[in-house]
């Protein structure tokens, strides 16, 4: 997100006046662990993509490959790592 606004710039009442702007809220900085995929082990089953509660698993649908994560929005919940049938995802502590 761009630089946080000062109070004078805000819409009164905290009303959100644009539709479909959830993407602008970078929830990635809530994360304490980041998922990391080992493509050697990955079988491209897309389970992680289906289970991710934040739509943060990136896939190339045309090629049928899981390609990585959207770290701007991934909250680090670890569901993908836990669901992966081939243990291809490790959760690495941030920092």
């Amino acid at each position: 997100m761009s630089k946080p606004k000062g109070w004078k710039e805000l819409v009164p009442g905290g009303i959100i006046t644009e539709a479909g702007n959830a993407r602008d809220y970078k929830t990635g900085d809530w994360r304490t662990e980041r998922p990391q995929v080992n493509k050697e082990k990955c079988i491209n089953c897309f389970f992680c993509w289906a289970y991710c509660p934040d739509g943060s698993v990136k896939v190339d649908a045309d090629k049928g490959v899981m390609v990585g994560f959207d770290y701007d929005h991934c909250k680090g919940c670890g569901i993908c790592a836990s669901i992966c049938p081939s243990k291809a995802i490790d959760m690495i502590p941030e920092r």
Partner: protein
Amino acid sequence: MAINLKARVMGLNGNAAVAYAMKQINPDVVAAYPITPQTDCVERFAEYVSEGLVKTEFVTVESEHSAMSACIGAAAAGGRVMTATAANGLALMWEVLYIAASMRLPIVMMVTNRALSGNINIHCDHSDTMGARDSGWIQLFSENAQEAYDNIIQAVKIAEDLNVRLPVMVTQDGFIISHAVERVEVLDDEVVQNFVGPYKPVYPLLDLSHPVTYGPLDLFDYYFEHKRSQIEAIDNSFPVIKKVAEEFEKISGRSYGFLESYKLDDAEYAVIALGSTCGTAKEAVNALREKGKKVGLLKIRCFRPFPKAEIIKALAPLKGVAVLDRSVSFGGFGGPVFTEVRSALYDAPSHPLIINFFYGLGGRDIYPEDIIKALEKIENVVQKGKVEEHIGYLGLRE
């Protein structure tokens, strides 16, 4: 108050006066739940609805929490919304009162002041509205049925002003005002309609081509900024309350300020009060004036926002002030009015000695003699030159 011979006069109690004003305002939505001593107001308004005299959507709900929640929904949808409650009903609205103010929804609510339980009591004190004083609502107190009628009409215009956009609470003392029939000068329907004007919704949810979100998650990154802008909004209401009162005077001949000074010009001692007690205090002031005592009354009409500059101006020249509180802040340093007035005077160029009296809890009557006692006490304190006891009680058995 000058008597306007051309005015239309009705015999109305406070509840009926407010219901009549609501009929003339003709809001889009009223969601309310009955509670003594407000019931009479909502009942009368429901009659106007069933007789087809208003176009209001009247929402019957199962509690006051739901009443205020329905008001919030209707106001966010883009309607002009009103309601009324009292005492525990207001207490049950607590969490949603804050939400109405935070979302900057211009809901207007009449509160018939009644003591909070326990024990169960249906009579007047100010514990209900004083408890809600930090919720972000503007609060206007009324001395009689006429003022309740006038305040509710002005409240609509104050709430909806684009520089304010905040909910407004108009109070009247339970039973003392709400159930006593008085002479009330009413305006013509058309005059009221022109005064409040057509409602201009801001970010209405029902504007489907401009979808908006009300009440999203607001954490440590923005909540503070939103509160700051809420502080600004209620501060902005000062000039608006003044302007609306001036416009109201043009249509009614009745003038309103944040405060009303009664015989304060040359006074040395004064009492401060809110609501119907001010009428009693005027009697007490007159009685003492006849004996040559230089005493007066400062009535607070607008408690939120708190008119500190005007309070300093009115009180700084005095020698002594007795603040009357009709509610308790348990464990606090005096009642809510005392705390606030005393704090405002701290930076005044000169200040009077100031003492506090609790009175009238649970509807205990207050008499002119009680107020005379308070004025004599403060005179005594001033003669001694210092306050030995800040807190006293009027009308309490030892």
